[in-house]
């Protein structure tokens, strides 16, 4: 049964990765990237890998995104939009 839940999570991950591609604002693509990491860390739980899940949640989804936002704040004076 759990595989169906995993499938839903996979679809959510792919959608948020597409948001990261097509979003015009940098901040939202960073948030989408964080969501991808969070979803992947959820999948790690389904894959019986709690160690990896905790690490991915703390480092990949948490700190990585935080560092991104901090860095974005430093360059915010200029452009925040991804110019297509």
């Amino acid at each position, binding site marked *: 049964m759990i595989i169906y839940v995993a499938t839903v999570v996979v679809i959510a991950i792919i959608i948020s990765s597409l948001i990261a591609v097509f979003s015009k604002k940098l901040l939202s693509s960073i948030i989408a990237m964080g969501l991808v990491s969070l979803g992947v860390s959820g999948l790690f739980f389904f894959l019986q890998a709690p160690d990896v899940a905790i690490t991915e949640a*703390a*480092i990949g989804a*948490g700190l990585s995104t935080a560092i991104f936002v901090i860095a974005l704040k*430093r360059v915010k004076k200029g452009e925040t939009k991804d110019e297509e």
Partner: protein
Amino acid sequence: MKNETPELFKKIFALSVIAVLIVGFFLAFTEMPKGWGVNVNGRVSRLYVLKNVRTATKSLDSGKFFAKGVKPLRTDVAYTPIEFKKTANLEDGAANVVTSIVVDYRGFDTLGEVTVLFLAVSGVMMLLFGKRKKERKKKTEPSLIMYVGTRIAFSVILLFGIYIFVHGHLTPGGGFPGGAVIASGILGLFLGRRGYSPNHMGLKAFESLSGIAFVIIGLIGFFSVHSFLANFLPTGIIGDLYSAGFIALIYIAVGMKVGSELAAVVDTMITDTEEEWS
């Protein structure tokens, strides 16, 4: 119009690269064991799960390990039942097999990994080196609740981080997530107080000393067992807090190192600096 053509080419190029990659992966996936086909017993991990590498080593010495041509007989290695909180003196006493691989069986990788993080942090600090700018006019002062709350939360988060890396050999977690948790606590302090700045000397000392501790633990193994990063402590009863030999020690060092390093990254990135090449 002039600008759009290279864009289009770029997209087509990217899509074709990705298409080639997907086809290749599809071919590889059809041939590789997946889902129901995965069998851990043919892999070297079986020995790690059974904590029976020494027996396998002995059969390797007598030439039995690769008896059928060059196919290793990992499934033949003896199985001794391991019972939580009962079995003592295993070759590696960590209840969490992932931890025992990360720190013990493949501890050298972890030393390298800590080094990679250290180098990345060194690079960040080298590139953002310079005179610290004066804090710009604050737009919003965090509220009193935020100020007090982050300070209280910090001690709780710190304790939680320490818990994670001290229990790395028993429960999921370990040095890396523990360190990351501590660093996020420090990040909270930055958010809660404008102009907060940790003790740089202390961070630097922490970072260096914990790294040195890791290498020295490795060197103790080198001088006592004559193999770098060898587990030189008794492994105790599986599941006990005092078990698994040097795993807890290494994870404490790793946790402190990762915590202080990530805190240093956050600190360096938050503070505006002015470059100086004089």
